[in-house]
């Protein structure tokens, strides 16, 4: 009998703006876009530059290090997967290259969390994608 335990919600790999990002995760690469025309860092991924109308977006790969801009500890969730995870930490991480992304902080406890904490991306591996989580450095 198949395992029916709830799993983390995973991205839709056919979504056109973000498909390239998720393909990159299979190689444990956190890819983001920068405009060759105006240097704007574009995040989340999309097909056009938000900084200029002559945009020429190129993919870059982050070194995966950043800092916690803010966080919360979820104590209550009715989601079938996340209710089994409480308490868990959600955070906005500012990567050193610029992109600010939403993720979970792993490998620590709520009590040890601080705004400004240095973190490093760690990959949670699933069959078709790897999920970028972060842990304290």
């Amino acid at each position, binding site marked *: 009998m198949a395992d029916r335990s709830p799993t983390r919600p*995973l*991205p*839709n790999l056919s*979504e056109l703006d973000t498909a390239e*990002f998720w393909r990159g995760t299979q190689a444990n690469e956190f890819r983001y876009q920068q405009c060759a025309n105006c240097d704007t860092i574009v995040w989340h991924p999309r097909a056009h530059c938000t900084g200029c109308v002559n945009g020429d977006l190129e993919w870059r790969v982050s070194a995966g290090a950043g800092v916690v801009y803010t966080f919360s500890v*979820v104590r*209550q*969730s009715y989601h079938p997967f996340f209710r089994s995870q409480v308490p868990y930490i959600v955070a906005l991480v500012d990567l050193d290259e610029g992109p600010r992304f*939403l*993720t979970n902080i792993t490998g620590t406890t709520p009590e040890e969390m601080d705004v400004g904490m240095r973190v490093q991306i760690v990959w949670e591996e699933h069959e078709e994608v790897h999920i970028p989580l972060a842990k304290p450095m």
Partner: protein
Amino acid sequence: MSDRDAAIVGIYEYPDRDVDGEVNPLQIKAACAAKALADAGLSWSDVDAIYDASEGGPMNGLTISEYFGISPTVIDTTGVGGSSYEFHAAHARRAIREGKCKVALLTYGSTAHSNAFAIGVGGRGGGGTSPVDNMESFAGQTLVSNYAMAARRHMFEFGTTSEQLAEISTATRYHAMRSPDAVRAMEDLEFIDIRETTIEDVVSSRMIADPLHLLECCMISDGGGAVVIASSEVARDCAKPPVWILGSGEATQYPTNGGSLTSSAAVQSGPIAFGEAGVSPSEIDIAMIYDSFSITVLTILEDLGFCGKGEGGSWVEGGRLRYDESGGPALNTDGGGLSSNHPGMRGIFLLIEAARQLRGESTSQVDGAKLAIAHGNGGMLGSRHTAGSIVLGGD
């Protein structure tokens, strides 16, 4: 002072917060519309403009016209979350000024409580068709933790404390206890220990998403309401004194690399509305600010200029937001979303209670109230949201 060319002339707030599946949202909208029109001394046939947030689904500008049995020639279905009704008031005033309509009807109806829709802690499902969902849904953000992240950053940058945030909750509950409808709402929704609260009550209540406690989170109720906005000629003949729309502002905010979570789109919408009205924040008697959570109000009080950025925590200490205290506007005198009414999109109640105050009809009436602001925040404070600011003046 701004031109007095459009006014709120009719209001109604649905009194029940738990309809137990016996009334649907369309029926709530129609019941409220009829009562608000009657409040104004008008009828269905007077309505020539319909405003709807499309909470009932797409094509609602048509659906609702047919259901009400009206034939409007201005149809506006701006749907920007809980602030939609502030946008509608702004748009109705503009349409009236242009001469496109004379009587605008705004309605809202929801059975969020009866549907047991876990708005605050439901989280999101997997993937999606939008790029934003596809980049965020894996992290299990709940609505509460979204706002909590804004609160955490405010604490980090400015030293704001949970005790200071709790002032928002206690002031709002203070007002709720004076409103029979709010007290009945809390009874029907099975609040425990219904009474005025202390700072200690709030900070010792259960943590939902750090640093936000249970008593800093709004309720999930059923409910609805309606507002009628009319031209000055119509308003002069209405049953109740007009409450004039003096200024409006609209704005959006969304995540950006390096952006700030300690301020909201109110930074843009507030000055536009105050400027158009020719009014400064210090003149405002009544602040109806969307209290989805304590942090929403604290952030927006700062953004609107009642105090400086980062000073909100110390500014709210000592109870100046209560209707019978001086030194600040009276906050959410109907009991707010925290303690009276939050069926998902609270914006219409901000207009309704502001109008009550400027008519002298509130259960926490501020003596001689002349100016109010209704500020709606739609979407989520900690990520992407809309802001609608409406400055109102008594007759």
